[in-house]
């Protein structure tokens, strides 16, 4: 009994540091919390903006659909249509609240073990928004088993397998999807997986050819194919070709946050931070774009850098307060580049890489491991790089540096 004072140093460290962590967190959200409640000066003062139903017929359509659903909330077709519309709305506006509204539409089946196929597919989509990939795949597997020609289910399967770096499974989903979709999308699906498994050259060529062959494809379809092509080109170090694909995609004139973020990253890597500030001048509301703006402002010595960094810190703190961990990749980049806290960035990047394994996830993990001088922490990313034969000039250079530090 006199040996009771043994062990447990790590816990000591943790509990001793906890108050400091809490303190810095409260500093991070401090400025906001300090904003005092107020009584607006006039009734005409605009406090917030919401979709305008008076001017936008799409908003009215959605409201009509919602009203119909409210009258029959257990109707499978109405519920699935409403959920799908909300998912599309989330993508268009970038507002995750719509994902919650979509979940509400599926309430009667949310915890059911075997809901109708259409419900299962929508439920999987909502699961993946919360990074619950296993649950999502279970629903999608069941959906394609029951309905082998369900293209939507196959697309989501391919997408989730890609993110989890299971390229063989992604390719299987792409082949199942091929006869159910256009040649351009079939090629793009396969090229996405091929480009990360040692076939980047042929994948880029095939995708470029498929784009040539489908000039009449819809703009959304072309935008997506061009974005993927640009990324493959960029990874291969073909800067001029990547730039051309990015510009063609932007020229389609659609608002696409993912494309803007990818092009901004390309510009940041090319030391063209000033162009990012112009490109994203209207984009400060989306977190992913605000991150690029802040990075660009810092690189360019722009005076707005500090303000944007503060806004980002507040948004990440708000996400953490509700227990949300789906922004770890962005937060890791933010913490490393704008707060200079390499160990914390590394912890975030590691945790993120355990869930998502795309080139960007590997990159932040390797960069953070280098900055924190813990090269061994990047092990999973280097293994992924080697095992798959990923072709990426940037990632290979990072792996080389990590190997040299070891």
């Amino acid at each position, binding site marked *: 009994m006199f040996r009771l004072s*043994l062990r*447990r140093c790590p816990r000591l460290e943790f509990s001793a540091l906890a108050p400091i962590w*809490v303190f810095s967190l409260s500093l991070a959200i401090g400025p906001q919390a300090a904003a005092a409640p107020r009584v607006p000066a006039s009734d005409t003062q605009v406090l917030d903006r*919401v979709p305008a139903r008076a001017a936008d017929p799409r908003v009215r359509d959605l409201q009509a659909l919602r009203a119909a659903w409210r009258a029959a909330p257990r109707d499978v077709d109405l519920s699935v249509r409403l959920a799908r519309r909300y998912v599309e709305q989330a993508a268009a506006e970038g507002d995750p609240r719509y994902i919650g509204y979509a979940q509400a539409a599926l309430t009667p089946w949310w915890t059911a073990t075997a809901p109708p196929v259409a419900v299962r597919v929508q439920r999987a989509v909502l699961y993946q928004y919360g990074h619950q990939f296993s649950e999502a795949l279970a629903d999608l597997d069941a959906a394609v088993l029951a309905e082998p020609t369900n293209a939507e289910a196959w*697309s989501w399967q391919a997408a989730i397998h890609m993110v989890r770096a299971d390229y063989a499974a992604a390719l299987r989903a792409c082949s199942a999807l091929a006869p159910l979709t256009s040649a351009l*999308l079939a090629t793009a699906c396969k090229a996405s997986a091929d480009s990360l498994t040692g076939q980047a050259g042929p994948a880029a060529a095939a995708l470029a050819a498929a784009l040539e062959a489908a000039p009449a494809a819809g703009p959304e379809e072309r935008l997506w194919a061009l974005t993927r092509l640009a990324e493959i080109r960029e990874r291969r170090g073909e800067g001029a070709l990547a730039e051309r694909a990015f510009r063609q995609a932007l020229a389609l004139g659609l608002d696409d946050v993912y494309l803007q973020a990818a092009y901004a990253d390309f510009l940041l890597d090319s030391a063209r931070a000033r162009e990012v500030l112009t490109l994203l001048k209207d984009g400060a509301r989306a977190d*992913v*774009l605000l991150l690029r703006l802040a990075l660009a402002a810092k690189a360019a010595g722009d005076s707005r850098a500090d303000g944007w960094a503060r806004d980002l810190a507040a948004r990440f703190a708000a996400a953490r307060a509700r227990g949300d961990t789906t922004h770890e990749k962005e937060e890791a980049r933010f913490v490393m580049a704008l707060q200079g806290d390499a160990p914390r960035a590394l912890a975030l990047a590691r945790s993120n890489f355990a869930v998502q394994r795309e080139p960007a996830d590997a990159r932040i993990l390797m960069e953070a491991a280098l900055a924190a001088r813990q090269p061994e922490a990047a092990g999973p990313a280097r293994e992924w790089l080697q095992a798959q034969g990923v072709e990426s000039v940037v990632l290979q250079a990072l792996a080389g540096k990590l190997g040299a530090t070891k």
Partner: protein
Amino acid sequence: MMRWWIALALALAGLAPAQAHKPSDSYLAITVADDKLSGQWDIALRDLDFAIGLDADGNGEITWGEVRAKHSEIAAYALARLAVRGDGAACAIEPGPQQIDDHTDGAYTVLPLTLRCAKTPTQLSIDYTLFADIDPQHRGLLNLQALGLTRTAVLGPQAPTQTFELKSVSLWNQFVDYAREGVWHIWIGFDHILFLLCLLLPAVLVWRSRRWQPVETFRDAFVGVFKIVTAFTVAHSITLSLATLGFVSLPSRWVESAIAASVVLAALNNVWPVFHGRRWTVAFAFGLIHGFGFASVLADLGLPREALALALVGFNLGVEAGQLAIVAVFLPLAFALRRSGFYRRAVMVGGSLLIAALAATWLVERVFEVKLLGF
């Protein structure tokens, strides 16, 4: 028309969609102070617009006038979805005049609350179902301040009812708890007691002409003991504080082994004296190591974030009180017996050898992580 290719595009483009806003949260603060309960509930205007419609003219702009016109409807809607119970009995909640505040994702209505419970609660239960039917991903971020402690919790459909104990965790009670733990630890921490005893045994003697001889006066014995205890105390307080505050951290296997070694050395020094004049320096040097041992006990107890220094001081004072109790019993007894051969041979030499043997066994156990003794 099936728009699944948009899904594919979005999905293959990186899944996590661009998030212009965060998911829906409300901020619920409840304060219990001086028998009074009050609260403030910040709810996003866009959420309220979705639930009960604020944008009366549908132009996409929510104005203060439109919000003001709906104040009573907002309060009724929100309070129908929040229930607070004190010790099982429902508390009445009254809304106050609303204001506006901004959070990261837009403007919020600020709803002040006055809570009336039958008596000042020792246990508070909160049922939270705001927006649960229209947005299951909505969460209420609770900040509960009571009796000097702040608690946070995430309310929502994943845990619709949550209960919080508000029992008087007064600072004084906390202090006494930690002090008691300190006393208890010295009392059951044989390694610390034996180390102290090894240093105290010779305090009533003096090493003269290559043998131990009794000191003349009680004052001499007292001064010797006083120096040793003070040095040990100062030293372990330093390392206890440094370790607890996170400035220094040593592997506990190393610390525990060094503590065992310190007992062996102190005991052997009584039999074959190397240090005899300035034993307080030995007490100081080894006291530094014992402090790390105390720190790991304190860490295991769990430290209150709000009262780290208080816990540290309380625990340390408890350790000192335990020590003084041992000294108070030991010193008069040893002083009385100091001239006897029993004390000088059986207690001083025999006892020290026994202690050395016991501590050597601990040392082996701790270094090699094996168990040799059955107790």
